[in-house]
């Protein structure tokens, strides 16, 4: 093993030590939220500390393990609080956003990759520039367009449209990079065999671009699942809140229901984290491929 000899100068033990320290840094906030979630109470304190606390008491207070294990936060967040409804809203919005976003991005990216037409470069550059538009500049006009002109306030359709379309630039750039790597000869030979443009797109190009499409889907889904400020602006009715708005409702302002927040956060985060870990290989290859190609 040549590389083994190369790195052989470094003993692995200190490397593991560094990595383990960073593991603690990474995991601590996550364990902490689990602790609060399973503590069965609303307080931020892991355990109560006596006034003349010893070092051991203090140490116990930062150990991420609840004083009493309880799932009551999880049950009451679903029964006493309308969190199930908020979660369902998020599922509806994120799923629809993903479907619409992937459709819009794939078609546009295919055209940008395969066809040479006037406005192509301008279109791609405008997508890039749009990434620099500050969200605060867009929020008021978007509110006017969505709520006042289109009458889509407190309506899923408004949020779905905004989410899927704001995800387009990133998705198009990413998919275009991937489509560029698919050899054109495949399509040309299919064309020879008499396939229509639509057939080529749906039967040849899309299946080949599966990893990139997966990343696009993940990106759109995550965007919609995690977005909070626009949802808070457009959704006036409490029954139409999405999960992020609802979670913020637990600990925003004067409300200090940290137990509900932690339980809700765990429920909200787990699917997205699992999905992310599942698809991250594609995301990373997509990002690096796009990055290296420029």
């Amino acid at each position: 093993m040549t590389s083994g000899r190369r790195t052989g100068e470094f003993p692995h033990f200190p490397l593991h030590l560094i990595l383990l320290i960073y593991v603690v840094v990474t995991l601590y906030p996550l364990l902490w939220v689990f602790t609060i979630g399973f503590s069965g109470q609303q307080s931020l304190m892991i355990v109560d500390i006596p006034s003349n606390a010893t070092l051991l008491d203090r140490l116990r207070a930062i150990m991420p393990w609840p004083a009493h294990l309880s799932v009551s936060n999880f049950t009451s967040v679903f029964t006493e609080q309308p969190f199930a409804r908020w979660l369902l809203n998020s599922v509806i919005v994120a799923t629809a956003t993903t479907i619409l976003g992937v459709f819009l991005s794939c078609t546009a990216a295919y055209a940008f990759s395969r066809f040479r037409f006037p406005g192509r470069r301008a279109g791609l550059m405008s997508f890039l520039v749009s990434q620099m538009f500050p969200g605060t500049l867009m929020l008021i006009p978007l509110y006017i367009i969505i709520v006042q002109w289109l009458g889509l306030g407190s309506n899923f359709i408004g949020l779905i449209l905004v989410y899927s379309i704001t995800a387009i630039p990133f998705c198009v750039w990413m998919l275009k990079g991937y489509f560029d790597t698919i050899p054109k000869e495949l399509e040309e030979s299919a064309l020879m065999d008499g396939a229509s443009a639509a057939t080529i797109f749906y039967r040849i190009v899309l299946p080949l671009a599966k990893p990139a499409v997966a990343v696009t889907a993940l990106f759109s889904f995550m965007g919609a699942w995690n977005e909070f400020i626009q949802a808070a602006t457009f959704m006036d009715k409490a029954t139409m809140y999405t999960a992020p708005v609802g979670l913020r409702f637990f600990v925003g302002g004067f409300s200090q229901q940290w137990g509900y927040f932690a339980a809700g956060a765990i429920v909200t985060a787990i699917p997205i984290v699992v999905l992310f870990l599942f698809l991250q290989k594609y995301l990373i290859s997509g990002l690096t491929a796009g990055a290296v190609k420029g």
Partner: protein
Amino acid sequence: MSAGPSHRRRFAVGLAAALVLGVGLFQWSLVRARARENSARAERVAVVALSALAEIAERAGGTGDDLRRVVVPVARENPSLTAIRVVAFDGLSLEASTAAADSGDKAAPRRLAREEKPLYDQGQRLRAAVETNRQEGGARKEEIEMARTPSGGLALAAPLEKDGSVVGLVAVETSPFPKVSGTGWLFPLLVLVIGMAAYWGGALAIGERRGVLAVAACALLVVAMVVLARHADGTLAADLRASESTVAAAVAAEEARAAKALQDASLGDARTLHPAAWDSDLFRRPYGIVRADGTLDEAKVQQGLAAGASSIARVIGTYAVLALAVLLVIGLGLAARLGATLRKHRQAYAYTFPAMFGMLLLVFLPFLYGVLLSFTDQSLYTSQAPVGDLFTKLWIGFKNFTDILGDFHVATRSAAGLVWNYQNIYWTLGITIIWTVTNVAYGVGMGLFLALILNTKGLLARPIYRVIFILPWAMPNYITALIWKGMFHQQFGVFNQIIQMFGGTPVSWFEKPATSLFACIATNAWLSVPFMMVISLGALQSISADLYEAARVDGATRWQQFRSITLPSLKPALVPAVILSVIWTFNMFNIIYLVSAGEPGHSTEILITQAYKFAFEQYRYGYAAAYSVVIFAILLAYGIWQNKVTRATEGI
């Protein structure tokens, strides 16, 4: 294009399209303007009737038989009123009513029924409005409430006063007012036909000379628009005059009725009424056009006419510019060329259309609208105003920008030393730069460091480390922000527990700018490492081992290998990642907004959260938009500079 299409015909099509557009828009606005004037007239007449009733009701003492004796006959004699009700707060009583429902055992006077509470509430709203306006010495809340009834009439309510305080309300309903008599299509059609005929006649003489044809068509269009503008001017001026005389007649009629009723009830001298004040806006500010004797103040009328004329000129001018653009685009063949391009690449355009249409509607249009807002004084209080007002009443030019960028009072010297002005843009910009540079530097440094360690061949449990280190990226960042905010809690937060464990005193993290910013940076640093780590790791793994082998053969040290092999190979992956992450961090709204919320006193805001606060806490939409445009300009300048330096977008 020797055998190309005829210029004559092209300009004919162009002129026809432009005329149809101009005439259509003209007619549409004229119909709308006349309808507006018509309902404004009906509203003024209704307000006159209501104010007259309110005044004689006040004169009659606000309650009792006297009130009914004067109010009911006046209301009955007025043909335009279908119902009137007078409510006194004292005893929740319906003092007088001519409504059909209030007859028999429900006839006034009686106590208000439970389902009539909205009427009482309306009275209390009006009382609050009157008191607010008096306290502030201004006119912020409407003192007359007006709404459309289902039948097409108006429902109005005004406060009933006694000795200077509001003791009840007077509500009236009017019968539906007449619609505008048809605005003829004949005249605009005639303009269209004559315009086309004149062009074709001229074109036969001119022949295929393109320049002359263009000038002729444009001149005809301008003449047509001027004719239309004069026509609109005349029609609307006549409408306005009709309104004034109708209102004047209404004032005179109400005065006569009121005087008679007061006399019949022997309630004092009718000459002390204030009919000049009856024609007022909804804040009960008299327009002052109708004099007390029922005649018109001609100077005021002329003023109104002049204002109307200038607004017509502006509107028709805008339409003329639009129509001219259409004429030239079609006439000069641009439209034809565009059509040919669209046909030639129709597949590409069909594929991009849905995405492009969405982007135009929900990204670029809001952006342009935001830029427009930045030149105005728009705020929550004016947000219902029509878009046209942005160009006129609310337009303030570059004032927002000079206010934002020209304010150099970053700090003031006082006895206690320097006092920073946290809302100053240069302070916020400084914080934003510190925020961005620190985060990106930490992200790259830590990410690269971890990636180098993880890239060690044969290291145990590498995939496990990798998955754990990615977790912060996978977590929704608003959850991360709220978790860290909890961990920095002054009393219960984990960090203060750790500090106390080592015998320190707990820190109030969010009470000093430095510690508050530190808390935010710590949060963001935690979640920005994985992205850089993953990018670096990907790039490291793609470096061929042969390069290191060769370097070792040449006797290069590890540092030399890192400098001349690892770093250059990382560059193509890291540079775009750094650019992206600078832009992301610069605009990272959630962390600042949720962790420190700008505390203390907006000192830890970054530009984007500060803009949000201007918009949604101070409701200064125009100012916030200008602030956001400045942010965009900074990012754009950065992007262009980066692009120059790295040429990242080459070869699209």
